[in-house]
């Protein structure tokens, strides 16, 4: 019922918008701001499709109220410019593509915080990003390739 003015940065650009208290970040991004690269999958924080970076950390946009983002720096797939993207293409890191934004945003957060992440750390970190085509080997190869290219 209450409305809230929130200010944050989205992929480096300032956003100043008023939202109802119950607005979810995933809906704010997709419906109010036109950033449809962030997908809405399970809606309960399990599948990883809606992964975004909040101050550099991966989170589920379906579990965050937009009001929680006041003052934060948000990065979505639209703001990604990483060797990971080329590596996903080279290694066939996707099939149908629905999980790809979340996989990339999560992997980018890992390589930013832990550039030398081990293969086991990569697998643990990406565990919550589900690929229903089961293209995990290609995804894992792509992330390892991007890590090793640094």
């Amino acid at each position, binding site marked *: 019922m209450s409305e809230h003015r929130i200010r944050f940065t989205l992929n480096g650009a300032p956003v100043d918008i008023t939202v109802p208290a119950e607005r979810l970040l995933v809906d704010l991004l997709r419906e109010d701001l036109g950033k449809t690269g962030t997908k809405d999958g399970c809606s309960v924080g399990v599948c990883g499709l809606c992964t975004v970076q*909040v101050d550099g950390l991966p989170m589920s946009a379906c579990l*965050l109220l937009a009001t929680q983002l006041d003052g934060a720096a948000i990065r979505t797939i639209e703001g990604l410019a990483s060797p990971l993207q080329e590596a996903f293409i080279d290694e066939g890191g996707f099939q149908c593509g629905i999980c790809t934004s979340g996989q990339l945003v999560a992997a980018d957060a890992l390589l930013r915080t832990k550039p030398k992440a081990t293969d086991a750390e990569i697998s643990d970190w990406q565990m919550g990003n589900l690929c229903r085509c089961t293209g995990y080997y290609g995804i894992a190869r792509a992330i390892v390739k991007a890590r090793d290219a640094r």
Partner: protein
Amino acid sequence: MRPFDYVEPETLDEALALLAEDPDDTLAMAGGTALVILMKQDLIRPGRVLGLRRLAQLRAIGATDEGLVLGAMATHGGLARSQAVRAHAAALASTFAAVATVRIREQATLGGNLAHADPAQDPPVTLLALDGVAVARSRFGERRIPLDALFVDVFETSLEPGELLLRVELPPLPAGARTTYQKFLPATRDDYATVSVAAVIARDASGVCTHARIALGGAATVPLRAREAERSLTGRRLDDAAIHEAAVLAAAATEPIDDLRGSADYKRAMAGVWTERALREVA
């Protein structure tokens, strides 16, 4: 999601005053991972949500003379990375690292986890074994609640309307104490445990057990201390017979429910198996 009012106090006093205005219709929100799902599914319908994210003093994690203090707004990720947590008990840090996925760990908080009171959660089990005490405050003052008195039933705690969890305090461990947390995950690694076991053991120079704590998750409607099993170990050498006997007593203390992670009988049997494994790890 049903519409609601949202307030975001800047200070603890302001938060407690806002909570006191209508304690039955106001829900405090820490990270929001549990609350947002419950609101989406229309399982709870608060008129007002009290966002706690600006209460920075509740995020502190630190060692004191009286032990370790964990702020209620500390995230699982922050706790898993904390040197102070690792120094107190490495198994406590790995317990926080074992929760769900990295996304949940970075958003979800200690206080939210405890107040949500899901009996299959990981942190309450290890915190119980470490003799954790929750500290809650309302406008009328502060209250210390040993964790085994905090959990009442599934999703139900002994927190009163108008009370906020501030922190968890862990007393110093006996010298040489060893701690472990074992999580039985037959399906996927990001799942809730079918059962889980935390154990803390200290022995004297002759190998006799001087301190034993065993706590179980997923084994009842609340996280559980296996007190008879603990008593059976104290004063004894931790040989195979002592460990097996304690595991049998721990299994007998469980009151599991049938659900998709296993039947009650299966969970009870697994509680014994995993208690034995946990004790072998630290004995």
